[in-house]
């Protein structure tokens, strides 16, 4: 793979992805690449197709044509539950936690793909299952410290403040030890200070844990401050791609957000 190219191959590559819902083209030939250690911000006005693309990446939708490659291998034959094992983890826009389970157990479920067991061994609590549980618990405890969830670790998720639940979701996604983390509007519903904290957290996830991040976000301040690269969608098309500074200068982007003269 490495062969004779000067730069490393992309960790995640989206090739000409097209998605149609009935007669509507939700994504029209989207293509971009995400390299290891990058933070990529995916932005666009409402209805631009961000969430659709996100759902393609987590395999909830299958594109009509095009391909999605992880480390050079197509993921389109995978089913959603196989994605964590591939190396792609995700969070949900409206926080999709397991309400009646504790914070700790929610994060433990995140480690599901990174561990093995079966009904029989679990029912008998066999020694190898116990050893594995100890490993999972070590990972989970480390994440609880990392995301400062120690005070609430053994409380049910239901009833916790929104910002806390967002951190639980990120912890849960990290428990699978993903190569690429997809974050769907992580700043939604957070206040100014919390957004600043989130930005530092996402940077730390990249820098300290070596996780590549794809960030779908409305919050421009956050996207522009932490992204290495920004991809802009509008009405299902990619209208711009580049560094935050380049994208901010792009007349098409300005037109898409503020409304421009009709063409």
């Amino acid at each position: 793979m490495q062969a004779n190219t000067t730069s490393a191959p992309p960790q995640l590559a989206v090739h000409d992805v097209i998605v149609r819902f009935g007669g509507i083209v939700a994504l029209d030939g989207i293509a971009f690449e995400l390299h290891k250690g990058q933070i990529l911000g995916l932005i666009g006005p409402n209805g631009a197709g961000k969430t659709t693309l996100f759902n393609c990446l987590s395999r909830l939708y299958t594109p009509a044509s095009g391909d999605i490659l992880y480390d050079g291998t197509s993921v389109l034959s995978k089913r959603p539950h196989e994605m964590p094992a591939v190396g792609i983890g995700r969070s949900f826009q409206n926080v999709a936690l397991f309400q009646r389970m504790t914070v700790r157990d929610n994060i433990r479920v995140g480690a599901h793909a990174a561990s093995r067991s079966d009904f029989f061994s679990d029912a008998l609590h066999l020694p190898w299952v116990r050893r594995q549980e100890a490993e999972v618990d070590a990972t989970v405890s480390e994440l609880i410290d990392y995301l400062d969830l120690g005070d609430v670790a053994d409380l049910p998720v239901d009833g916790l403040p929104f910002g806390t639940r967002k951190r639980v979701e990120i912890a849960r996604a990290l428990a699978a030890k993903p190569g690429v983390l997809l974050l769907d509007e992580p700043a939604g519903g957070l206040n100014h200070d919390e957004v600043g904290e989130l930005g530092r957290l996402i940077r730390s996830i990249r820098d300290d844990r070596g996780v590549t991040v794809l960030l779908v976000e409305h919050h421009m301040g956050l996207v522009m401050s932490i992204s290495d690269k920004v991809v802009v969608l509008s009405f299902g098309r990619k209208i711009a791609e580049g560094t935050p500074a380049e994208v901010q200068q792009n007349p098409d982007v300005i037109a898409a957000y503020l409304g421009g003269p009709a063409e």
Partner: protein
Amino acid sequence: MSVNTTTTDGSQAATGSAGSVKAVSLPKPAAASSNAKIMRTAGIVLLIMGLAAPFMAGNFLIFQLTMMLIYGIAILGLNILTGINGQFSLGHGAFYAVGAYTAAIMMDQFGVGYLWTLPVAGIICFIVGFLFGLPALRLEGVYLALATFALAVVTPQLFKLSPFEHWTSGVMGIVISKPEAPFGLPLNPDQWLYFLTLAIGLLAYVCARNLVASRTGRALMAIRDNPIAAGSMGVNTALFKSLAFGVSALYTGVAGALGAIVVQYISPDSFTFTLSVALVVGLVVGGVGWLPGALFGGAFIMFVPNIAEELSKGLSGAVYGAIMILMMYAIPTGLGGLLKAALTALSKRSKTR
């Protein structure tokens, strides 16, 4: 523009975070350990009572207590499916019947020892449950309830069919002889079956507890709480839901096999739809999702109809119904919910003192 509105929401959430988190979390460790201590003591007391009971009760009461434990095992199975995995079943009487017939036919036709029928009944019911769980994947809530209801209605009819009559004896049913205590134990047959059922019940309970506290159990609960998120975390939801059906049917099937041995007679009419409903009643009364509740659910469906009959012979059904309505009115979350509320209140009171 959306940024402005979300900011106000977020700041409220944030201030809530700083305040409430600490308030809830402070008493936590002490309360949790004292609650666990209360539960453990209660469990030990119950076990001692359970071990002593057959030496103090008459044979008929021992038989009733054995049936209570058997229903408890069946309800435990239903609880794994409904309480832990969130799938509803109005048809567990069918698995109970399949387990009972497996045991009866093995003993009656093939002269197999009664102990061997228990694992076989469990395995057969696991397979039947798993296979039923596959098409049931497409169904949820009331639709799943209807499909399982159909299973409960159809299964007893199947045992009446003439092609199977050679084994099932049709409507006549099968009579089973009562096993004696082995190894010359100084127990009468009723006492022996009681202790056998108690041992199997304990094993079933320990396995269920282990399962719930494991990776598998967390996957099952994750599916119950949010199937899409569970899938995104790598849980094969279809497989786990089918397996939950299988394991649940295994428990209920073993209970059915034990029931056949203890009652010494089975016929298709032993397993009407009423049995399935009784198991659901037991589940709800004991507490959905609370494993020890199965014991209390078993006690309820075993003894309360008798109490109702004593109160009024002619209107026993109506009295039973009234008791059920009262129970649901007084403790809508079952005994499990009541206990949880009581323990919370207790730990709060001890905190304020």
